[in-house]
């Protein structure tokens, strides 16, 4: 029996200041790995970076992989347009992330953690490193052999893709690798690696402290717990909000819109644009029977009111992808250029409106043939905008 989706419910776990992280760490690492993994699995926590892979399972597979060397990596390459939650987590509650990394390391048999911090967040580095040294000091005290290093990115959106991130960490161009093998078996330096988004790690802290049930009881079926949402665009209250998963987009717009909301881009430039007429039927969560559409969202919510031209919005997204595609695979590299030049040509009347249909077919090809997860999603915004606002695209 499916639960019906509920009204927007605010929550306050992530940014709640917990001054007992030392106790939580000490207590948690005394538990058996199996026990912790089971708890994570029963919480149904899924990756908060966007892909939504079950976190407990990820840790479990990596724990079972045989290797003398393993790594825990925190993905803080928050590059998706409209997302800024990880920046806040790392500035306000970094110890939660570090605690989670240490617990994970202890379970999987790793001694080294790395935080890959995007170059744009350089200003966070100093404070973060200070927290890390305090944290490492405590680890030493409780005889936990674990260190964390901050590795800076240098301005490349694609490095948020986990295998591209490994390439970057290893000193290469951030070009995604072929999968399989997956990071749990062959990740950083070809060793088994847990790579989690900043927010995912912060949620595990909540679970360690309050138990899986507390987390599971929030949200809805297939989409348990809370999620941070980065709200921007035409809203009177831009910012970061922790909300239970499963709300309808209509409720979200009622709360954050400016009364004239025309559409919401869910999941950033690589996500989908949802027009007003579909707000009610769209639930925000992971894929499941309940949700109207699947929104693999990192929590970016960009709100557009009726003064905005959807052509300009799409033009901006595509410009972004044209530059930020790593460029190695054909569908993403050339596809992005074709979509961008194509919509401009249609807008200027150099190509007939029917050319959009050719491009829609191309966008399907891009979604199913690109090498990496990001390449597969670069055409999402194109498809959803052209489908819903075709008239704005035409000359």
């Amino acid at each position, binding site marked *: 029996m499916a639960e019906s989706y509920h009204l927007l419910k605010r929550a306050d776990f992530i940014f709640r200041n917990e001054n007992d992280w030392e106790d939580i760490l000490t207590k948690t690492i005394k538990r058996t790995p199996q026990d912790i993994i089971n708890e994570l699995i029963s919480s149904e926590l899924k990756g908060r970076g966007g892909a939504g892979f079950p976190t407990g399972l990820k840790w479990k597979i990596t724990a079972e992989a045989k290797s003398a060397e393993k790594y825990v990596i925190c993905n803080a390459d928050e590059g998706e347009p409209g997302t800024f939650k990880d920046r806040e987590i790392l500035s306000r509650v970094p110890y939660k992330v570090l605690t989670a990394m240490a617990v994970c390391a202890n379970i999987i048999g790793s001694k080294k953690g790395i935080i890959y911090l995007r170059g744009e967040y350089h200003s966070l580095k100093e404070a973060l490193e200070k927290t890390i040294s305090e944290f490492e000091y405590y680890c030493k005290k409780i005889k936990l052999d674990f260190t964390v290093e901050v590795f800076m990115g240098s301005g490349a959106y694609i490095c948020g893709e986990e295998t591209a991130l490994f390439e970057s960490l290893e000193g290469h161009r951030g070009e995604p690798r072929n999968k399989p093998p997956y990071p749990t078996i062959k990740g950083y330096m070809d060793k088994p690696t847990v790579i989690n988004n900043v927010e995912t790690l912060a949620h595990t802290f909540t679970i360690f402290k309050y138990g899986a049930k507390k987390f599971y009881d929030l949200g809805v079926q297939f989409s348990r717990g809370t999620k941070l949402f980065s709200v921007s665009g035409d809203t009177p209250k831009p910012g970061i909000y922790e909300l239970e998963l499963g709300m309808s987009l209509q409720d979200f717009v009622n709360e954050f819109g400016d009364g004239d909301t025309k559409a919401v881009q869910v999941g950033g430039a690589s996500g989908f644009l949802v027009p007003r007429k579909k707000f009610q039927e769209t639930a925000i969560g992971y894929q499941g029977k309940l949700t109207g559409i699947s929104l693999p969202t990192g929590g970016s919510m960009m709100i557009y009111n009726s003064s905005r031209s959807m052509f300009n919005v799409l033009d901006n997204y595509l410009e972004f992808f044209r*530059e930020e*595609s790593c460029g*190695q695979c054909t569908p993403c590299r050339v596809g992005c250029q074709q979509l961008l030049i194509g919509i401009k040509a249609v807008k200027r009347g150099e190509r007939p409106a029917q050319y959009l249909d050719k491009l829609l077919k191309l966008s399907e*090809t891009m979604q199913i043939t690109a090498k990496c997860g990001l390449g597969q999603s670069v055409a999402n915004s194109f498809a959803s905008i052209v489908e819903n606002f075709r008239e704005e695209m035409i000359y």
Partner: protein
Amino acid sequence: MTQKIQLNINGFPVDVKPGTTILEAASKVNVTIPTLCYHKDLCVAGNCRVCVVEVAGQKRLSAACATPCEDGMDILTNSLKVRNSRKHIIELLLSEHNADCTKCYKNGKCELQLLASEYKIMTQDFIELLPWKDYTIDMISPSIIKDDSKCIRCQRCVRTCAELQGVNALTVAYKGDKMKISTFFEKPMNDVVCTNCGQCVNRCPTGALVEKNYVEEVWDAISDPGKHVVVQTAPAVRVGLGEDLGFDPGTRVTGKMVAALKRLGFDSVMDTDFSADLTIMEEGTELLTRLKKALKDKDPDVKLPMATSCSPGWIKYIEHMYPEYLGNLSTCKSPQQMFGALVKTYYAKARNLDPSKIVSVSIMPCTAKKFEAARSEMHDSGYRDVDYVLTTRELSIMIKQAGIDFMSLPDMEFDRLMGESTGAAVIFGVTGGVMEAALRTAYELVTGRPVPFENLNITAVRGMTGVKEASIKIENPLKEWKFLDGVELRCAIAHGLINAKTVMDAVKAGKANFHFLEVMACPGGCLGGGGQPIPTNAEIRDKRAKAIYEEDAWKPIRKSHENPEVQKIYKDFLGEPLSEVSHHLLHTKYTSRQRF
């Protein structure tokens, strides 16, 4: 652990070993999946996406080259979804590509063109992207042209340069729509560490990397009644040329090649193999001289190991990467350049020709030879020693242009004076061959007996292992070589510059104790040269190698010092190995170059 994986491809069941890719599995059930970035010699990139296939139950398609088979997979390689996607991908590549095919050097040989033809891409719906892009066409190198407007960014060249050659002259630069194949700071290929080996050219699926061709120049020379045009052919050409003219890989076409060259109108068709034999005389003597200095005279300055100098790719590589070891290189010119210097001196005199009227052409399996011939020091005859270097591929172009039915040509013999050769010279075309040829002669010079191997075949130096080591013990030498009694002559052989790097690093670290080192820049030696027919891969290299050893086995004379024309040139012209004339015409010096 002989676990089997069972899957279905287009409904046909197939068993494979774990780790087998879908692409490999498909070939077992007679299914060809188109590829572009994939190359048998290189690591899997999975970036062109042309090889996508449908795995039942999955929404997304998988790259056949990069996806390992899993038990129970149901794979469709030609479903509607696959066909539509593949067509899109080809169209996308074409939209980014200078598709002016009729004016392209690779017209008819381009893998992208072939795919476009197979998939009947009749219209160009997508917008042509080239006008939006900055691109360069680099024609400065005497060996290689790099035309970015034709690049499809498959990165085969970059992987070749890094994985096979360890040169890394090419890299992928920038990202997104600006992503391109570049050299350091986008300098011309001629100004960077490029060795001109042409392995990238051999692997480029399109016309983005091609040899600089001199076909028209050679036609002009042939048509000029005032010119006497001499041609020489390298050992590896005769086992490769056939592939471009209808024969299977591994077919020896020596006689037909000579016949074709004569029909093309060359005034004299002679053989680089002759000067390969001469190289053995000079280089073998040089090695023995160095050994004498080191072992008998205890000269601390003598440079060992002595390294071969036949491969111009290797020469440029060591000039860039290990300039401190230039003294270890044999001072012998390559057979091509020895031949060139002699054509305009010895040959001119013997035939009573004005050397300024001679045009000297060589047919090489190599693109680096074009650079070598253009080196400023290669003018010892008083003229440019070799005027034009054509690759095996360019020769096949000329043969086709001339309307010669190559397959049915009767065999012909090389012209005399510099056309006689031995089995030892033929094997110059395969890795280990120079070593084997040198040992056949040096051992006999020192001991008065042939090398102690069955049929003179020194199998220890043969084969495709990247670095080979062998040794031969010298016993009961002739009186003048007494100091070599009991000495184990140790040699190492490397082919593919990545393997040369391994050996040179060992030399540098003081961990190498051999006396003689053979290096060929290209995998497999010259038979796998950058100028050889496309495709070239491990399987084809093996077939060409087999052909070369057959050619050797069939030769009546198989030791360089027994070549009557070599004996004659020493008697009539050079005197003896390392004589003053030899030094002037047949030896050279090297230039230290920048590594970065």
